[in-house]
C-alpha cells in the first residue's frame, strides 16, 4: 500500500471518481488552472476539461447555488470553498436549499452535492483562514458532516461523499494536508459515512476527537503510555450521523471521557458528544465528562504568543488527560 500525504489522497479520490462517473464535476475558486489553492484538484482540468472542472467567480453563494442546481439536474458536483472562513455567504444556500431538498420535496429529490472546504488553524493563519465551522452545519438536519483524520479516510470518505444521494459537508483540516502521511489502499477504497473508529485501545481514559485534534491526541496517547496511562482514542470522523454506539462502548470500558475540539468551547460540536455521554452513559462514569476546546474569542489571533495560547497543543491535551485519569 503506497504511503500518501493527506492532500494527495484527496486528489486521488477526485481523479478516481472523475474517471468512474462522468456526472462528477468540480467547481470553485482556482480549482481549474491552478488545481486548487492547496492542490486538491491538481491535474483534473488537463484530463477532463473545462466542462467538468469549473473556475468560479469569487462568490461563494453562487458556488453553492450553482452546485445545487447542477445536482437537481442530475450531476454530482463537488463544490470547493477555498477556506471554510469564506463559506458563510453560502450558508443560506446550503442550509435553506441543499439540506432541505429531500424533506421539502417529500423525498422526490435529493441534493447530491459535496461541499469541500479546508478548516482549522495552522501557524499564522489568523482570523480569516482558520475557522472551525463544523458546529454550524452539524446543527442542521439534512446534511451530513464528515471530518477525515487519516489519508486513507480522506480518500475513502470523499468517495463515499460523492456517491451519497444527499449533501455532505466535507471538512479537511488544512494543517494535515502536507504533514500527515499514511498508507492509502489503491483502487476503489470507499469508507462508509457513519461509523466511528477506535484508533488506539486503552483502559483509563477515552478521548474523542476528529481532524487535527485526533492526530494530536494519538501523539499524546503514545507519550503517556510509558507513565502507565492507558488512553483510548476514538476517531469520530463522521459528525453527522454520529456513531453513538462506538462512543458509549468506549466510555463503558474506561469510565472517563475527554472530548477535544479546536472550535470555540461554547456550543462547539464536542458539547454534543459530552451531552450524549452524560445522558446515556451516566452510570458508567467515574468522573465528570470533560471538554478541551478553543477559547471563546472571535478568532485565532495572529500574534504568535496569543496563537499559542489559543491552540490546543499536546501539552494541553496531556495535562487534561492526566487530570482526568487522576494520575
Amino acid at each position, binding site marked *: 500500500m503506497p504511503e500518501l500525504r493527506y492532500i494527495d489522497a484527496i486528489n486521488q479520490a477526485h481523479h478516481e471518481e472523475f474517471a468512474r462517473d462522468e456526472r462528477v464535476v468540480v467547481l470553485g475558486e482556482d480549482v481549474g488552472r491552478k488545481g486548487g489553492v492547496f492542490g486538491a484538484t491538481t491535474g483534473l482540468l488537463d484530463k477532463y476539461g473545462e466542462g467538468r472542472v469549473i473556475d468560479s467567480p469569487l462568490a461563494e453563494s453562487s458556488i453553492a447555488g450553482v452546485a445545487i442546481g447542477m445536482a437537481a439536474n442530475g450531476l454530482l458536483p463537488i463544490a470547493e470553498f477555498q477556506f471554510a472562513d469564506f463559506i458563510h455567504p453560502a450558508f443560506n444556500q446550503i442550509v435553506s436549499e441543499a439540506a432541505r431538498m429531500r424533506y421539502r420535496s417529500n423525498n422526490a429529490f435529493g441534493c447530491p452535492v459535496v461541499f469541500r472546504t479546508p478548516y482549522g488553524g495552522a501557524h499564522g493563519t489568523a482570523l480569516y483562514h482558520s475557522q472551525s465551522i463544523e458546529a454550524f452545519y452539524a446543527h442542521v438536519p439534512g446534511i451530513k458532516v464528515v471530518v477525515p483524520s487519516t489519508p486513507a479516510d480522506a480518500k475513502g470518505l470523499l468517495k463515499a461523499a460523492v456517491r451519497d444521494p444527499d449533501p455532505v459537508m466535507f471538512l479537511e483540516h488544512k494543517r494535515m494536508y502536507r504533514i500527515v502521511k499514511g498508507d492509502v489502499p489503491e483502487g476503489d477504497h470507499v469508507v462508509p459515512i457513519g461509523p466511528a473508529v477506535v484508533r488506539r485501545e486503552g483502559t483509563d481514559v477515552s478521548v474523542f476527537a476528529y481532524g487535527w485534534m485526533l492526530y494530536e491526541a494519538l501523539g499524546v496517547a503514545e507519550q503517556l503510555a510509558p507513565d502507565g496511562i492507558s488512553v483510548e482514542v476514538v476517531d469520530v470522523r463522521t459528525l453527522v450521523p454520529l456513531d453513538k454506539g462506538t462512543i458509549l462502548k468506549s466510555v463503558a470500558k474506561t*469510565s472517563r471521557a475527554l472530548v477535544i475540539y479546536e472550535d470555540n468551547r461554547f456550543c462547539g460540536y464536542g458539547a454534543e458528544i459530552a451531552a450524549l455521554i452524560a445522558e446515556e452513559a451516566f*452510570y458508567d462514569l467515574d*468522573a465528570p465528562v470533560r471538554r478541551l476546546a478553543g477559547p471563546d474569542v472571535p478568532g485565532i489571533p495572529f500574534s504568535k504568543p496569543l496563537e499559542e495560547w489559543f491552540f490546543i497543543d499536546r501539552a494541553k491535551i496531556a495535562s487534561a488527560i492526566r487530570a482526568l485519569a*487522576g494520575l
Partner: protein
Amino acid sequence: MPVEVKMPQLGESTYEGTIGKWLKQPGEPVERFEPLVEIITDKVNVEMPAPFGGTLTEILVVEGTTVNVGTPIAMMETASGAAATAAEVPSEKGQAAAAPTAGARAGGPPTPVASGPARQTADGEGERARLSPVVRRLAEEHGLALDEVAGLQGSGTGGRVTKDDVLKYLEQRKGVSARPAAMATVPPRAPAPPGTVVPAPSRPTPAPAAAPAGEGDELVKLTPLRRSIAQRMAQSKREIPHAYGVIEADITTLIRWREAHKEQWRAREGVNITLTAFFIKAAAEAIKVFPMANSVWTEDGILMRKAINIGVGIALDEGLIVAVVKHADQKSLVGVAKDLDGLGRRARDGKLTLDDVQRGTFTITNPGVFGSIWSMPIIVPGQAAILATDAAVKRPVVRGEGIAVRDIMHLGLSFDHRIFDGAVAVQFLNRMKAKLEGFPGGDAALTDF
C-alpha cells in the same frame, strides 16, 4: 412494601428535631403530602407532609422525643415499590424550600446530601468527595453500603474513590471472606459550602470537669432553641475573631418626629413604625456604601452577598430568635415596618416559617429595649457583622457653646476582623449616624427618611 419515614432536615442549621405531635395514628391511611407529624426544630414548628401515600404502620419515635436528622421516626406500608424512591422526598423538599444555600448562590458546591468524606483536591478547589455514578452502580450491584464505599481509601483525584478502588476492594473482600466492614472507616464530615451555617462537628460536648451538682441544685433540660443558640454562639466565638466599634448618635429629632406622628402613621399604615425600622433602613443604606459588612468569610475568599437581608433579634420567653427582613434595601420604611410587624407576631405565636428565619446577611439586635446602653453582640455564624442598637438616654451634651439635653444612643458594631478592619467598621457606623441624625423632622413624610 414497608418503608421508613425519616426525620427531615428542616433548615440550614438544624441537626435534630423533636416530635411535637403525631397527626396520624398507626393503622390510619395517609395520603401523600398529607400532614403526618408536627416537628419542633430549633427555630420553628412545621407539619411534615407524608413523603408517600399508604398506611402508617408504626410510630418509632414518641412525642416529645428529640432525634437527629435522618433517624427513622415511623414505618409506613406503601402500595407499590415505586414509593421506595419517594422515601428521599421529604428531606430534599425540605432542603430545597428551606435552604437555597449560600453555596448554590456563590457557585460553590451544593449542600451535601450524603455525608461523604471531605477532601481537598490538588488544585485547592474545595471539592466534596463524591461517589461517581459508576461507583454507585457497582456498590448497588454488589450490595455495598454507600457509607462503606465512601470510607475506602480513594486513589482518584483529590482522594476520590474510583471504579478501580471498588473493584479492588471487592476482590480483596472476596479474599478475606466475609468481613465487609473491615476496611470501612467512619467518613469525616463534609465541609460546609461557603457561607452556610452548619452545626459544630458534634453536639456541644459536656463541659469538662462539670461542676458537681450541690444540694438543691436543679438541672434544666436544654430546649432545642437553647441548644441551638448555645451551639451557634460558641461556634461563632470560637471561629470568628470579633472586634468592636461603638459610636454615639443623637436621635433627638428622630424621636420627636416619631412621637409627633406615630398615631397618625399607625392609623394610616395599620402598623407601628418602630425605631427598629429606621435602624434597618439606615443599616441597609450603610451596607450599600460598605458592602464588606454584608459578606462572609470563606477559606476561598470573602463572599460578598448581593442580597441585603437583615435579621432582627426577637426576644421570646424561651430565648432569642432572629427573623429576617428580606431585601431591606429595596423596601420603603413602611414596607420594613410591616415586615417587622408580621415577623414579630408570627414569632410570638410560634408560627414563623423556615423562610422567615433564613438567608440573613446582616443582623441587628436591639438590647436597648431592655435598657442596655452599651452592648457587644456575637456575630451570627455565616455573617460579617452584627449591629447593637442601645437605649436612647437623655444626656447633657455640648452643642456649640452651650449644653443641651439630647437623646443619645450608642450604635455598636461587632465585626469579623478577618474581613475588614476598624476603619471600615467606624465609617459604617458614622454613615448610619449621619442618616439618623440628618433627618429634618418637622412635617417631613415617612418617605423622606
